[in-house]
């Protein structure tokens, strides 16, 4: 009764949570142009997409992906053998326990007519599967806390996942062990199944079980007489062995039983077996009920992601389905950290403290963003910086064991955030090369907006640039500017500039304009001057700085050996640093 009530309650919670989670796949909005697509359009479009694939030759690809990636998990194997062993052990062990042990009344009995949980091979297999899961969990703990795989972060969900599996498994093993030592359990079996009533016979059998199987008896103590044991053995073989294999076969339970033997009587008196039974059962039901809301939901979502991305490939996908797919992919992420391990730009984190640089950590932020929750400007800026700080190398997508198209996700989120209007200075770096290549396909019509915004945010901090025709007093000189240009120890060379203008003459960007000063502001030799004079505004405020190709013509040809290009690089660094700080401060004030 208790079992049934618990089962139904947890099943109902499970189903409600499942419906809720699946509904987010159609409700959450990731990326550009998604706001206009209604939930029902997305739902029916997904159904149509699935049906189209199921009734096409692609079903074969789907089957292949299901076997190789979902069942055998080749994508994990390709990445890391130890991790594959870990995952296969947990997943195969757990699945088999679920099917053969938890659902034995429905599945196992239906297949094997002579099934008894206490006979072999079932008794041995149950422990074997349990041991597999335990080994898997131990590897998981080892990887996270001892091996310390680089850039793998542990959050509350990861700990919960390890804990719930560990509690289910350990309570199961301890339950088995306590039952082995508990006299009352022995007594119950004898009463129910043996059919013996002669006290002498009962004593012999008991002695045999105490000696051979570790039952702790309150009445009998070793050593026993050989004759009694021989009699007990005979009785065991005739009355018990038929439907109870030697407990040694249940090796995890038996091993544990050996350890807890000294307190065997106490265990029985405290009714520990039934306490553990409740723990075991309740842990299973909690695990089931909470599954859709926990990391374990990846069992469904990752499989769907692998299958979907396996058949979609690089083809065009309709916007409604792309939106649904990307919302679903957020659940498919297991926070395994492979993407962060392989990410090309992770060194950036050493200088820019923003967890959103790591792909594995971006997912959580994007989930919050997609749910429509209000985020502060700082939080939005952080996510924006994190998704833009990406060299678009596709490595995360290639290695993701759940097959998530991470690159597309970053790109999509990036564009949405850029349109929100917070200036992002990273757009003024060659990281934008990819954005430029993609503009005809996926970038919205406001393509130029973020680029203009970033330049304007910098120009806004450079007041002197606006006083074009005025005489500037040198009292604006910033003595710290020269000192600030020391990153590569080459930039200080600007002080030997004698104003021959060779840099400006050879500059292909200057050469591109009829009236270069109008388009570019200060020209290279003038910027060298401004740096020399310590006039920050003039050095930072020119378009020339951001229109520099870094082709090094100027530097190569400078007769004075001024590292013109390197100076421009450092000025850009400094400008971004100072302006970023100022815009952040003003945002905080607001």
């Amino acid at each position, binding site marked *: 009764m208790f079992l049934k009530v618990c089962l139904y309650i947890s099943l109902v919670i499970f189903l409600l949570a499942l419906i809720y989670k699946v509904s987010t796949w159609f409700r959450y909005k990731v990326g550009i142009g998604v706001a206009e697509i209604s939930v029902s359009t997305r739902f029916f479009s997904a159904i149509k997409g699935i049906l189209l694939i199921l009734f096409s030759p692609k079903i074969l690809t789907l089957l292949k992906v299901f076997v190789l990636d979902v069942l055998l998990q080749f994508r994990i194997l390709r990445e890391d053998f130890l991790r594959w062993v870990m995952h296969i052990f947990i997943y195969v062990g757990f699945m088999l326990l679920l099917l053969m042990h938890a659902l034995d009344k429905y599945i196992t009995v239906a297949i094997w007519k002579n099934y008894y949980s206490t006979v072999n091979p079932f008794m041995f297999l149950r422990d074997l599967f349990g041991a597999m899961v335990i080994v898997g969990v131990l590897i998981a703990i080892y990887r996270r806390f001892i091996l310390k795989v680089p850039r793998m972060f542990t959050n509350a969900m990861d700990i919960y996942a390890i804990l719930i599996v560990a509690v289910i498994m350990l309570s199961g093993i301890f339950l088995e062990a306590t039952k082995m030592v508990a006299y009352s359990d022995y007594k119950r079996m004898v009463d129910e199944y043996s059919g013996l009533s002669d006290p002498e016979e009962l004593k012999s059998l008991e002695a045999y079980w105490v000696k051979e199987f570790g039952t702790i008896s309150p009445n009998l103590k070793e050593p026993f007489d050989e004759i009694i044991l021989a009699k007990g053995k005979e009785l065991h073989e005739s009355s018990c062995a038929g439907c109870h294999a030697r407990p040694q076969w249940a090796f995890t339970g038996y091993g544990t039983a050996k350890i807890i033997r000294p307190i065997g009587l106490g265990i029985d008196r405290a009714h520990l077996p039934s306490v553990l039974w409740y723990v075991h059962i309740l842990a299973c039901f909690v695990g089931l009920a909470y599954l859709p809301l926990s990391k374990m939901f990846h069992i469904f979502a990752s499989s769907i992601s692998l299958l979907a991305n396996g058949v979609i490939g690089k083809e065009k996908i309709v916007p409604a389905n792309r939106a649904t797919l990307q919302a679903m992919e957020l659940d498919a992420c297991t926070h395994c950290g492979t993407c962060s391990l392989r990410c090309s730009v992770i060194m950036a984190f050493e200088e820019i403290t923003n967890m959103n640089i790591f792909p594995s950590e971006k997912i959580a932020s994007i989930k919050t963003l997609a749910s429509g929750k209000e985020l502060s400007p700082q939080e939005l800026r952080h996510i924006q910086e994190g998704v833009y700080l990406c060299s678009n190398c596709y490595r995360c997508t290639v290695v993701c064991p759940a097959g998530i198209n991470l690159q597309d996700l970053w790109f999509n989120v990036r564009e949405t955030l850029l349109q929100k209007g917070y200036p992002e200075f990273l757009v*003024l770096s060659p990281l934008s090369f990819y954005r430029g290549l993609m503009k005809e396909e996926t970038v919205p019509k406001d393509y130029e907006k973020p680029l203009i915004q970033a330049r304007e945010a910098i120009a806004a901090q450079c007041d002197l640039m606006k006083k074009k025709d005025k005489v500037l007093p040198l009292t604006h000189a910033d003595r710290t500017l020269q000192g600030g240009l020391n990153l590569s*120890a080459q930039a200080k060379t600007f002080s030997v500039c004698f104003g021959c203008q060779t840099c400006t003459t050879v500059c292909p960007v200057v050469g591109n304009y009829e009236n270069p000063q109008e388009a570019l502001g200060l020209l290279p030799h003038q910027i060298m001057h401004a740096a020399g004079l310590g006039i920050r505004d003039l050095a930072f405020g020119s378009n020339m700085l951001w229109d520099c190709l870094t082709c090094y013509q100027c530097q190569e040809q400078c007769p004075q050996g001024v590292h013109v*290009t390197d100076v421009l690089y450092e000025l850009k660094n400094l400008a971004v640093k100072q302006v970023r700080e100022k815009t952040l401060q003003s945002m905080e004030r607001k």
Partner: protein
Amino acid sequence: MMEFALFLGCTIPARLNQYESSSRAVLEKLGVGLVDIREFNCCGYPLRNIDFKVFILSSARNLALAEKKHLNVITLCKCCYGSLKKADYLMKENDSLKKEVNATLEKEGLKYEGKIEVKHLLSVLHKDIGIEAIKGKMATTFRGLKIATHYGCHALRPSQVVGFDNPVAPSLFDQLVEVTGAESIEWPMKLECCGAPLWGIHDKLSMDLTLKKLTDGKKSGADYVCAACPYCHIQFDKVQKMILSQRDVNHPLPSILYTQLLGLSMGVDKKALGLEMNEIPISGIEELLKKERELAEEKELAAQKETKKETASAKD
């Protein structure tokens, strides 16, 4: 056997697979061993505009990874090349910087001492393998093919740091192109920038510069522009295609990767060359390869000349 750590960078695996496959195929035929180091990260080039430290840490980590395996680095990208070279140069020149960088790398058990060399594919071909050795591997050569060689800024300059070739009058790439039988034409804008560094930052300016350069190449009589850098090539290929559709230009100068050109004359498997993967079609170039019959005739002619000479000298 010559062995290098292959530094692919970010752009090639993501957007220019044919450059990787053709380079691997060509280098294999020339007996160069390539070691892949999975832990390699971005060279740091895209972040130099924003944060010098991120750039140098990124580059230095790669150098340290290669040094750990005692391997020199070969790059296919000139921006990666320029960045790695720059980082190597700065760390050799500036001891305190080196210490600071190594202190960060230490966290991963890495360290860069400066014991390895960074080379671009072209300098490996020219200096380590040599023109003569490449000549010996030719299966067939081109006839009447005019190529505009594009050197690429970050390979040539700053010459003090990279030491790739003479920065004012380089000839390394021209020689490598001429091995294939093609003519490397003289063109005024040969050493100018491709425009890629500004693509995505200031597209109009970037297109202006690219178009100017390509028009100059076309006017100078080139059939193809040839690059050995993913940024330059994508700029000349995909971006040129965008320019053609946006501006009133109808004289494309298609771009061929050097390893595609060399691979064709070395008789490398077509699949590896991936000619069809270029955005602006280049398959026409195959028609300029000398046919087997022509080659045989040529050989015969040379042999006849030889015997004539011999008989003449015998007569004397």
